[in-house]
């Protein structure tokens, strides 16, 4: 009970702070200075129609690199903590068979889900979307495969292969930006192209596709570990 009272007092303090924050908020009429620069110069400088993408991939590219690193370390830590069950142990678990209809529709839907994920990250500089959304969609496709056949454990090698190759290529393109263009993760190592087409915005589609593959493989690996987690003893 005492603990609850302490929690309540602490929460009241936080609520007071947040109330101050809310009271001091005034809605703005114009963009802040940095954002105005991005909005004015961004489309011509980088050739990307989606300004969020240009901020994520280029202007704040280092943040994104750090984010991908965090994902990678999370996947490694989970892999370190959870041991996987072997194929035989999975079979012995006695899962209930999935419905035949789910099997058939999985075989039909997973390629479409993957295609949609690819659409989302390839068109990341033209329409909403990009590597993170596309990666999450691709991981959802893998999840559908896991749900339809819980005992199968194929595709582990392809997941780790995609993960490492796309990670290395991402950093490689970033370093290429130092030598061929203005700085790390600069997208102008490729021609900017015509505004509004897929082959435009320099290296942004390539970088975002690599991020998408990386995030997809990373999230799939996390799901894999959680699915096959083995109990101690």
């Amino acid at each position, binding site marked *: 009970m005492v603990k609850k009272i302490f929690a309540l007092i602490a929460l009241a303090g936080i609520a007071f702070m947040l109330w101050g924050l809310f009271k001091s908020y005034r809605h703005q009429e114009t963009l802040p200075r940095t954002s105005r620069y991005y909005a004015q110069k961004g489309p011509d400088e980088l050739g990307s129609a989606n300004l969020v993408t240009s901020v994520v991939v280029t202007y704040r590219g280092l943040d994104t690199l750090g984010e991908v690193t965090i994902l990678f370390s999370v996947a490694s830590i989970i892999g370190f903590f959870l041991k996987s069950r072997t194929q035989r142990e999975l079979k012995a678990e006695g899962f209930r068979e999935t419905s035949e209809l789910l099997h058939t529709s999985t075989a039909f839907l997973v390629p479409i889900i993957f295609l949609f994920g690819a659409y989302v990250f390839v068109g990341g500089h033209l329409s909403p979307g990009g590597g993170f959304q596309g990666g999450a969609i691709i991981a959802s496709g893998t*999840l559908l495969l896991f749900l339809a056949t819980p005992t199968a454990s194929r595709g582990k090698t392809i997941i780790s292969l995609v993960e490492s190759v796309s990670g290395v290529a991402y950093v490689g393109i970033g370093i290429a930006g130092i030598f061929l263009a203005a700085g790390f993760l600069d997208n102008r190592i490729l021609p900017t192209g015509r505004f509004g087409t897929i082959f435009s915005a320099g290296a942004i589609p390539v970088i975002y596709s690599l991020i998408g593959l990386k995030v997809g493989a990373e999230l799939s690996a996390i799901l894999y570990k959680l699915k096959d987690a083995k109990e101690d003893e």
Partner: protein
Amino acid sequence: MIYFWVLTIVICAVMLGSAIMALYHKSLAVTVIAAGLVSLLASILYLILAAPDVAMTEAAIGSGLSTVMFFYVLRRMRGGENG
């Protein structure tokens, strides 16, 4: 834009309600689904606030991935609490 106002107020009220349901419902499985409902409504709110990228991320994550993570853990403690 009176319609968006009404929509925002309705969504915000329902979001707060389902957040409380997510914390206090006695069955753990229901709390996970209620958290999913919070994410669903949040994605409409992002669209009203002109952030389609964020709405899409929330849709891709909230529709399957976060739910399944909770359920993968929940299946282990089936005996622990009324699930």
